[in-house]
């Protein structure tokens, strides 16, 4: 059997979904980034101060602000990719799958944004 794809399509290697291996690749890259970030937040959460002023001054340290924002963006992107895999495997009806996927993506974007803005608001001392 011949290959019906055009030479260009074969070279690009993007497949019928036109995304190639980007989902797989991004999930792995974010996973790698999340190894140190997850350990950092895990141990930080446990030591989370009950006192508001202490937490605020911790977040306001420039390095903490940067790493927190990075963590939130990478974590929610990783979550979005993972939830997508789960939804695509278990939600079979086309209409509901599309709806659930869109809702899931939107929620990840929304809560990721809310998290980042909260950190920035604290960091800039609102």
């Amino acid at each position: 059997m011949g290959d019906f794809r055009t030479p260009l399509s074969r070279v690009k290697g993007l497949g019928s979904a036109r995304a190639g291996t980007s989902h797989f690749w991004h999930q792995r890259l974010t996973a790698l980034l999340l190894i140190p970030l997850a350990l950092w937040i895990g141990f930080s959460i446990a030591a989370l101060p009950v006192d508001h002023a202490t937490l605020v001054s911790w977040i306001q340290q420039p390095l903490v602000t940067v790493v927190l924002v990075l963590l939130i963006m990478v974590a929610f992107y990783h979550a979005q990719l993972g939830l997508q895999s789960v939804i695509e495997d278990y939600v079979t009806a086309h209409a509901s799958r599309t709806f659930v996927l869109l809702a899931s993506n939107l929620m990840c974007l929304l809560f990721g944004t809310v998290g980042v803005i909260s950190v920035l608001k604290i960091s800039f001392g609102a």
Partner: protein
Amino acid sequence: MSNSNHPVSPHLQIYRLPLTALLSITHRITGVILAFGSLLMVWILVAAAQGADYYQWVMTHVQAWYGQIFLFGLLFALYLHLCNGIRHLFWDVGYGFELETVDLTAKMAIVMALVLTVATWIIGG
């Protein structure tokens, strides 16, 4: 049809899942749990940005017994997903597929997750 004597494969609910299969589905479940659990983290950040009073109110729930159980479970889910995720990353680059290795790393992931959870809890006080 139903009376034919051919061997049938064991159904998922009867088949005893090996440890590796259990960890595989657990990886998905912990992933989904963490996606929802991260909302708690966002909620705490929102509360902290909102002001001291609201943050204090949220923390009374986090400090309560049900909040602490939830947090402990979330931490364990985080570390299990992390440790098992490292197994997946090794598989992705082609290492650790031998049966003994797969079994050994499965047990290592669970033990490491437990150790990290307890260590975090002790450090956190």
